């Protein structure tokens, strides 16, 4: 995965599992741990992040020849911040309850390492098409990670999935799963599971 200029398709596929931002690069763990208590919050967070990531990657890729090396991080952060502000106000205008629930984590997308990392690694070096497909792939990977964590936490913690009751009524809610320690437990186990699967694949192919 250390090719000089990967194609758009490669960028797209890498983002989902082989270079999954959460499970493989362990970036952006703050939203992953904080807003994965239920599916709806996780999906909203994924959409917000995806919007910011795609827009920021596009803009950065378009202006990549104008970037000065010592100023590039500032330009990244300013670009990201403008789109995050858009998302923040959109959410507050059209989905106020979720905006309240997500609280400070939407503005915190500004400092989400995934987006800065993608701007640095991909968008500031490659063309717009590659940058957009990279952003979509990474967003899907981010969404996959968030939804899988939220599934565990919501099913165990409140017996529901996306608001629908799927566990029997006698299900004892695992309160711990809704608290921060539960997030770390689930996160650790999922990283372990992903590593286990990749090691199985490696053993088979070799």
């Amino acid at each position, binding site marked *: 995965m250390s090719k000089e200029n990967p194609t758009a398709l490669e960028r797209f596929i890498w983002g989902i599992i082989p270079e999954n931002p959460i499970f493989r690069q362990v970036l952006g763990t703050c939203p992953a741990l904080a807003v994965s208590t239920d599916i709806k919050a996780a999906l909203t967070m994924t959409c917000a992040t995806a919007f910011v990531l795609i827009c920021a990657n596009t803009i950065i890729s378009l202006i990549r020849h104008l970037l000065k090396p010592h100023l590039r991080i500032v330009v990244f952060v300013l670009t990201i911040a403008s789109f995050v502000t858009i998302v923040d106000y959109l959410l507050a205008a059209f989905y106020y309850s979720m905006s309240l629930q997500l609280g400070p984590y939407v503005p915190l997308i500004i400092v989400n390492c995934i987006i800065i990392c993608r701007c640095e690694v991909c968008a500031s070096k490659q063309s717009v098409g590659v940058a957009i497909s990279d952003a979509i792939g990474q967003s899907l990977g981010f969404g996959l990670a968030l939804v899988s964590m939220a599934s565990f936490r919501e099913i165990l913690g409140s017996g529901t999935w996306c608001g629908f009751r799927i566990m029997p009524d006698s299900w004892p809610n695992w*309160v711990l799963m809704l608290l921060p320690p539960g997030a770390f437990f689930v996160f650790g186990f999922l990283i372990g599971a992903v590593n286990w699967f990749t090691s199985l694949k490696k053993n088979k192919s070799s």
Partner: protein
Amino acid sequence: MIHVSPSPHYPGKSRTSSMMMRDVLIALIPCVLMAVYVFRSHAVFQIAVCVASCLASEAIFSLMRGKKIPLRDGSAAVTGVILALSLPWSAPWYVGVIGSFVAIGIGKIIYGGLGQNVFNPAMVGRAFVMINFPVALGASAYVSSGTGIHIITQATPLTAAKLTAQVSGLWPLFLGTCNGSLGEVSALACLIGGLYLCFRRTASWEIPAGIFLSVIILGGVANMVSIHKQITVLHHLFSGALFFGAFFIATDPVTSPLTPLGKWIFGIGLGFFIMMIRLFSGYPEGVMFAVLLMNGCVPIINRYTIPVPVGGPVPEKKVS
């Protein structure tokens, strides 16, 4: 006939971990008997569930790591009994099962198995289920009037003292005819088992001594400045899981310091945290959290209490 060998010069075989675990199981007999006497079938059920699921999870997690199953050293059984004895009688079956799996899996095997764990496995399991199922393990779980057992119609002594300032008599607390978690009701049974452990040198006497010392001092101070006027030092000593925790949980050789001075520091720190939680927090009892807190300090205690070897301190290596 001079036998020359490198240290340790210990002739017997009683220091293997399976022998130590057998000692702990023997020492737990009085507590188990007392629990069965007080809580009848509830205690038998709880212990059976916890031991069985501890053994099962030890087998499963060891298989997952590709190691042979170390059931014969008995450490999983000890964890199971201690976990069961620290639960309330009314805990549903899944509490014991989940607690055991977390205790063995997350508390022990993930760190690398027996001898590698940082935190006491039984307390990790109990902390997990306690935060996870606050209803099944909170103060209300201990009280019920429909079972025909007289003792469990009252709140546990520490809860009663905390909420309604009622104090139970010292003799019921000492003998064990009062409500509580399965193993903690009788200070006498814990004392018998604990003294056996200390005389067998399976448990280090410094740790319980340190705990009692700091609980006596802090309890006395608290009583004098009347934070809880009606609870005397003896109430603090005999109620709750103090004896059980001091003799069976804190003395776990894996998660306690190695040096004599370190053991004193460990015990005194434990007593300090127990008293702080009992006096100032929302929880009536703090042995579990105190043990986990002090377990985390063990590596640093070990590092700062390395004893000076015979012949003076080891000269520092020159870094060239």
